[in-house]
């Protein structure tokens, strides 16, 4: 059973991911961080993959239903050929909802190497934020407009 705080934080984090995705246009997906870093699409695919990878360690039936948006057999992140924003938005939202549902009902952390399912969720929230920070830099490097600060930070505050 999840605490209300972790549940609310998870929902806020999902909203921020969707705010970011709502800001993106197709041409922004190929913007790349300086220093041959990941593209925006690779960051987003990795955020989804990381949740699927770790989630399967405590609830394989649910998390294995998250679609692979990159070839799981290849170490480098190679997004599927027809990956578009609509798919990213759909899979981001559905995977986050599915994870919350699983974490709320599963009592056993299974093979997760975390203190608890709650700390796993907090880790994923932090992991997303790490990559959002780098996505913002990739957009900047590509000369694209950045999302408003309010879209990325305000959801943490009441009102």
């Amino acid at each position, binding site marked *: 059973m999840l605490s209300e705080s972790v549940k609310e*934080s998870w929902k806020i984090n999902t909203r921020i991911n969707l705010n970011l995705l709502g800001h993106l246009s197709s041409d922004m997906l190929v913007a790349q961080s300086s220093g041959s870093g990941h593209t925006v699409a690779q960051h987003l695919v990795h955020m989804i993959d990381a949740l699927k990878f770790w989630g399967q360690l405590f609830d394989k039936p649910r998390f294995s239903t998250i679609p692979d948006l990159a070839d799981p057999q290849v170490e480098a992140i190679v997004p599927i050929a027809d990956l578009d924003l609509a798919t990213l938005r759909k899979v981001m939202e559905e995977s986050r909802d599915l994870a919350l549902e699983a974490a709320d009902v599963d009592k056993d952390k299974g093979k997760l190497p975390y203190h608890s399912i709650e700390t796993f969720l907090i880790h994923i929230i932090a*992991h997303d934020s790490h990559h959002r920070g780098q996505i913002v830099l990739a957009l900047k490097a590509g000369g694209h407009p950045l999302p408003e600060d309010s879209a990325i930070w305000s959801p943490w505050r009441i009102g």
Partner: protein
Amino acid sequence: MVSDSVKEAWQDNTKINKVILDHLTPEMVHARTPGEGFTVAEHLLEILHTPKYFGLKFNEEKLGAIPNLYEVKDNEYIAETDLGRIREVAQQTAVDVLEAAEAADSKGELPHTNLDMYLIHMMVHDAHHRGQLLLALKTNGFPLPSEDLVWGPWKNQ
């Protein structure tokens, strides 16, 4: 009051900040994020000052005593670059913020739902700046700390 999970996560997050701080050399703190972004020192200032900024809203006495890592010159904030000083204040901030949150009876004037969510927001803020700080190091040709060190603390490593 802080839940056990958030307390554990805060301690993991503190270890990760320490990994980054231990990795840095005096040359690295001046590395700048591409696109005229923050320097590493400025990212560290963001990471260390923001918990204090919000923390003053529920325990001004205790958290107001954490030293500032900046000086103001000509209306500009100049970030501390002395790594020894930054590491000291980082340690104090991590300990004092958690202690204050655990001892608090109420969230005071915090704009968060509760103290757990204040701490989670601060960890998210740290992660955002750590991600950008690592790119500042990478694009300036500095080595990065190993992935295991940066992510391991979340996984009991």
